[in-house]
């Protein structure tokens, strides 16, 4: 492949790719993202390729493994274009039928369609599925359309046209002005306006500057950046090159976490392809602008997502944050002006250049523009990645897109913003998502994690869990974070174990204040949030644990006991046989009793007791009912049941 030496050559090359493809020919897109691969997508892709060849259809049917379209709950996801027919949870065994029925005969296979859990209606098209219907996908939408490993696919949907436009029709200052005008705010955590960050670097006197992609996505349960890195790496790369042009940087970096091997592979491939086409390197598209990109792998430290720790790590030192009070866009990597933005932020840049700041600001709220990708996980019917306009309410995200809470359980809270975000209770579900709105509610946007919790979740235990994560990930440099979180974790663990004392809440508040006010970096400063937000909305749960030794959610193992209701027990022997501690006494037609001395609170009896009996119950904070007298334990069954 020859280099593309001008925007005109790029345009012609794109036309040549598109003209070779008949838009009416079927194209089978199979998600090859990490989630679907885990549920067998590789086998499905191989089966499709083999079947298409067997049937001699390879000339007319295109088959590709694509990026993640987000509906991981129902993977592997298959979308057949141009009709956009969407099949879910497809297995290799289904492939022959799909080719014979849908590809050859244009018939829909009902059982593979999405069925609305509420209405029971089936949806044929991807865009008709309730999970997708209520989203606004401007960044994620291309993932399912392109083979993430093919630059030609990216070019065919208009890829690199924003770069061509920026380099040939706009000055660097005009690009900067457009991004500033769009009010694009950082998608990685703090929500700092990207344009202002860029401007600071551009105006800094030091001539050598850098642009960096923060791809160190480390929040538990978050995978939006991963989906973009794996599924559409060129979109991030294109944004980065445009950013380099706007601030006069000739070098860029991807800081990718090592735990994302496929992302590392796809990014490296994308860089190689872009270099081959002359979209990276010297004199890009004949503009005179030079730009090179390097990939750096993190080594598994959460704190390296923090800007100064990331840059220290990039310099080859131990990834600890710097104590400096200068912004890294002025003195960052090797003390030079460095613009660090998150994956999703960079992926928005080509859209802004192509469609304009006015288009971008038409989406969203007053202070938060554009869309945001959330990873919707936890106790939610439709787990997956959702992209919505800023300003959609939490309720709409959780119920309209997420399909609500499974198992008929009640909603309790939604945790947003990653481990150092906060928990938002049911009474605030009408909250519109946006940077400032979430902060005001005691949580944060963070990078877009959204963990839904139901009534069985203990909020004290949630705080303990996240503080434990952050204690583990603290770099250990400053006292308020290293020592303060360690003590907070100890106290929270004690409370959930029934060893809470009067004054513990005040002690935790004191430690939280010290960490928030005195920690060196954002990890420590935001680490007490899980405690502070759960205390703000669920203080009664803390008090129940401490004062009554009761866990209202019946979740903390050390505070609950299992009991068999003698009126409900049918003496079926299931729990008795399954109990690993031999703690259940009883027999055929003899009501079962749990020996509390032997019971280990493992919960097996609770899980195996048939729901139609529901005889095993959890109790907390109340005295164990005295066991039923021996002579009343025999059940006399009706003759029909003999």
């Amino acid at each position, binding site marked *: 492949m020859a280099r593309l030496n001008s925007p005109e050559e790029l345009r012609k090359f794109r036309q040549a790719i598109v003209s070779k493809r008949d838009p009416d020919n079927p194209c089978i897109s199979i998600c090859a993202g990490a989630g679907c691969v885990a549920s067998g997508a590789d086998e499905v892709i191989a089966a499709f390729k083999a079947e298409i060849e067997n049937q001699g259809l390879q000339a007319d049917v295109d088959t590709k493994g694509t990026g993640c379209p987000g509906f991981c709950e129902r993977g592997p996801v298959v979308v057949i274009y141009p009709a956009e027919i969407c099949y879910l949870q497809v297995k290799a065994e289904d492939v022959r039928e799909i080719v014979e029925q849908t590809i050859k005969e244009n018939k829909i296979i009902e059982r593979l369609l999405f069925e609305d859990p509420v209405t029971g209606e089936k949806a044929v098209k991807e865009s008709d599925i309730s999970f997708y219907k209520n989203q606004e996908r401007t960044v994620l939408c291309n993932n399912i359309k392109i083979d993430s490993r093919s630059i030609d696919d990216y070019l065919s949907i208009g890829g690199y046209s924003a770069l061509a436009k920026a380099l040939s029709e706009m000055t660097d200052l005009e690009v900067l002005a457009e991004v500033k005008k769009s009010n694009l705010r950082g998608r990685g955590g703090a929500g700092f306006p990207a344009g202002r960050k860029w401007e600071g670097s551009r105006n800094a006197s030091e001539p050598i500057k850098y642009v960096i992609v923060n791809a160190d996505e480390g929040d538990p349960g978050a995978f939006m950046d991963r989906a973009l890195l794996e599924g559409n790496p060129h979109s991030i790369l294109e944004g980065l090159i445009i950013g380099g042009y706007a601030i006069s940087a000739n070098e860029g970096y991807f800081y990718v976490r090592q735990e994302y091997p496929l992302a590392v592979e796809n990014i490296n491939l994308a860089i190689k392809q872009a270099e081959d086409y002359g979209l990276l390197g010297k004199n890009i598209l004949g503009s005179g602008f030079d730009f090179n990109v390097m990939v750096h792998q993190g080594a598994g*430290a959460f704190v390296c997502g923090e800007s100064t720790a990331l840059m220290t790590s990039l310099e080859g030192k*131990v990834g600890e944050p710097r*104590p*400096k*009070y200068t912004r890294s866009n002025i003195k960052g990597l090797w003390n030079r002006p460095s613009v660090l933005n998150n994956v999703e932020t960079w992926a928005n840049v080509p859209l802004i250049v192509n469609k304009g700041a006015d288009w971008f600001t038409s989406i969203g709220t007053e202070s938060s523009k554009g869309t945001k990708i959330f990873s919707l996980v936890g106790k939610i019917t439709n787990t997956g990645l959702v992209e919505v306009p800023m300003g959609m309410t939490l309720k709409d995200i959780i119920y309209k897109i997420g399909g609500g809470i499974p198992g008929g359980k009640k909603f309790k809270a939604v945790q947003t913003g990653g481990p150092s975000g906060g928990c938002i209770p049911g009474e605030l579900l009408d909250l519109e998502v946006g940077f400032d709105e979430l902060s005001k509610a005691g949580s944060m946007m963070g990078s877009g994690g959204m963990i839904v919790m139901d009534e069985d979740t203990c909020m004290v235990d949630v705080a303990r869990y996240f503080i434990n994560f952050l*204690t*583990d*990930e*603290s*770099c*250990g*440099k*400053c*006292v*308020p974070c*290293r*020592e*303060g979180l*360690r*003590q907070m974790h*100890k106290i929270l663990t004690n409370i959930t174990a029934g060893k809470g004392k009067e004054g513990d809440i005040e*002690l935790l508040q*004191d*430690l939280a*204040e*010290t960490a928030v*006010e*005195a*920690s*060196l970096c954002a990890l420590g400063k935001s680490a007490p949030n899980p405690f502070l937000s759960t205390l703000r909305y669920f203080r009664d749960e803390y008090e129940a644990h401490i004062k009554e030794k009761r866990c209202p959610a019946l979740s903390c193992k050390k505070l609950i006991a299992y009991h068999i209701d003698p009126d409900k027990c049918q003496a079926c022997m299931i729990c008795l046989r399954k109990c690993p501690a031999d703690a259940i006494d009883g027999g055929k037609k003899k009501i079962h009793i749990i020996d509390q001395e032997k019971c280990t609170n493992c919960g097996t009896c609770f899980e195996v007791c048939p729901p139609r009996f529901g005889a095993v119950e959890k109790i907390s904070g109340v005295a164990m009912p005295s066991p039923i007298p021996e002579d009343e334990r025999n059940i006399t069954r009706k003759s029909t049941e003999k």
Partner: protein
Amino acid sequence: MSEILLRIDGKEVRAEEGMTVLEAAQGEGISIPTLCHHEKLEPFGGCRICIVEIEVRGWTRLVVSCVYPVEENLVVRTRTEKIDRIRKTILELLLAHAPDAPGLVELAQEYGADKNRFEKDASFCIHCGLCVRYCAEVKKKNAVGFVDRGIRKEISFIPEIAAKECWNCKECFPLCPTSYLQAAYVLTEALAFSSPSTETVSEE
């Protein structure tokens, strides 16, 4: 170097550009407690006990004085109720490791810190990093370093370097506020220094 005028605890202070608030305060005899600071070493910003309140154009916030640079018209308050409370908590967290370290005990008296507020921990290192940084920055030997991270982080002598370099130096010993360093050194010496004299003897 241009002169900068700032106000610390109501007192007008002259400082030079590039100085930290801590240096400016110390120059005027205003005392701010420190644990990880050393004039020969780069600011570390680890112990956070030198935290002060600053006011810039009406906005107040807390910063650590060992890192924050002086600026014109800066207003600094080194003692407020909140600062004292934070310093007290920091001291109590460290006293859980080193309840008898003289420097900590002295500060604990001033700030009313209770050495029994938190459960004691077996390790008495307070991670000020003075030994590690002194060896790296002043002696340029790197014979002692930090290993691991977070609550598992500890100082450790690198036997290969320490066996060669430490015997006639030990300049880091008096820097250690808790004597943990000496213990770590003796342990490394006993367990990991290869002993050339005994080896030679056995070969003969």
